[in-house]
């Protein structure tokens, strides 16, 4: 099996407390994988280590066979590992359109001046905004967006690098049913059309079952079960 991302023997402790204890798994290209576990199981720490926000005490992370354990969050994004945050941190002084432009600029795609005032539906910025349902909010400051729109913006930002792997940390936990349905549809479409693999962390088993092919159950820093659906 071709491996997109692999984690081998990941260990992490905070102030002497072991949070992850030898976590190993791999994700194939285009594979939708879920991570389920109770509070304190180490899910967010695992996400932070895979995305480059934290470095493990031991173990290694590889992308397409190349070790990336010591690469930073931004370097991993540019390699195609994009993550969203459980609580989005919007840019308070930027418009929605500008926020997406920042992510595109990091990948050498699109510029803020590319389409003038941005009235056209063409161009990578508008394409992403239309895809995530934010086109009509493109001139709204990020600080004014609702929780649902902020998560859509997180998706737009993550998709800007044409990711190979999307890491979604509790993205559906604070959304309305309508927003959840929209974002799930977007996730399925991204997975189906673009072949983007994803790692979805959630407390909600039915939700994971509805979009994932495999679910990893994390308890006390270890993967205790792995279930193929």
């Amino acid at each position: 099996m071709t491996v997109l991302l692999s984690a081998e023997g990941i260990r992490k402790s905070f102030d002497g407390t072991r949070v992850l204890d030898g976590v190993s798994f791999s994700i194939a290209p285009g594979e939708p994988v879920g991570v389920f576990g109770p509070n304190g199981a180490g899910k967010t720490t695992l996400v932070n280590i895979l995305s480059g926000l934290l470095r493990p005490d031991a173990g290694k992370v590889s992308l397409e066979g190349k070790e990336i354990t010591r690469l930073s969050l931004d370097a991993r994004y540019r390699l195609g590992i994009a993550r969203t945050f459980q609580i989005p941190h919007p840019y308070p002084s930027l418009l929605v359109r500008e926020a997406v432009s920042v992510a595109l600029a990091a990948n050498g795609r699109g510029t803020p001046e590319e389409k003038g005032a941005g009235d056209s539906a063409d161009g990578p910025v508008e394409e992403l905004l239309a895809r995530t349902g934010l086109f009509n909010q493109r001139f709204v400051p990020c600080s004014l967006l609702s929780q649902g729109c902020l998560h859509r913006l997180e998706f737009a930002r993550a998709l800007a690098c044409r990711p190979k792997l999307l890491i979604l940390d509790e993205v559906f936990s604070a959304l309305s049913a309508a927003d959840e349905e929209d974002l799930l549809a977007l996730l399925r479409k991204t997975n189906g059309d673009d072949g983007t693999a994803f790692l979805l962390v959630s407390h909600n088993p039915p939700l994971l079952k509805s979009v994932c092919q495999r679910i990893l159950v994390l308890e006390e820093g270890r993967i205790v079960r792995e279930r193929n659906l």
Partner: protein
Amino acid sequence: MSPWRTLPSGPWADPFRGGWLAAGIGLLLLFPLSSPNAYFIDVFTTGFLLAAFTASWDVIGGIAGQFTLGHALPFGVATYACALLTSVAGWPLPLACAAAVLLAALVGTAMGALSAPLSGPFVALLTLSLGEIAHEVAAGHTFFSGPGGYAWGGEGGIPVTLPWVDAPPLASYYAALCLLCLASFAMLRLSRSRMGLILRAVAGSPITAQASGIPIERFKRMAFTVGSVFAGTAGAGFAVHVGRATATDLSLELSFQAATFAAVGGCGTIVGPVVGALVLHVLLQALSLPPSARVLLYALTLLVTLRFFPGGVVGTVRMAAWRVLRKDGVRPPRAGVGRPEGDGR
């Protein structure tokens, strides 16, 4: 994150794109025709250079959100470089000025390298320390003797050797105005470029910027370097205008003054800090306050601005324009109110 940086941007929110700037520059061009006395010409000339310096602070402290309190360091390094290179090394003035700007850029790059891994108050503390070390060295030591046996340095400073004896005040006035216009134009272009957008993103939410593929430390360092180039340019101009480099050019008061003027004008807007610096400098000169009273006044002004007008003058005007011109009923954000940081990690 700077507390006043939640202003909306965009086509409806920029009242300074029209003829306002041209009108202001026109007024300043015509001002000498009203036959003001030499004192006021000098006050405005100094004001133009301080306005350019304040705008250069805005590149680092406003646009990039790195609240530096050591911005006098590249400014003072440039004034001292001009003085030392012309008076001691005998360099021609233009060459000395170019070297001064280059030195200021190097100092800024070093400050950026040291402060890039830090954030918030730690940036302010580190830069303040660096600036104060340089100030104390310059103020406390007569570090060499010039020709003729008398001591240079210390509080008295070092003279700049100029190729002219007495420059006509109007020549200095228009040269300084030209420097301000060119520097402000360049900084405005930067703030509206892709780099400016990324710097504003880094200032607004470093973690989101990093998760968007932005190497944030590299952009912080770039902000320090670019801001220091403009601070050095203002410093070289100041040295030529005043004819002397003194320890005051490296003082905390100068850095604090730039931060205050920028906050009053509107951080992150370039135009606001320029207008704020110019107006406040002229007003403060008219009041003829002693240095200690000036620092107290800066602190009070900063306090009142941050509490009641966190967007500064430009921010408040933009907010009003936003309210008037926005048609879909979305309420503008209250300046200074951002979302809390932290994601439950």
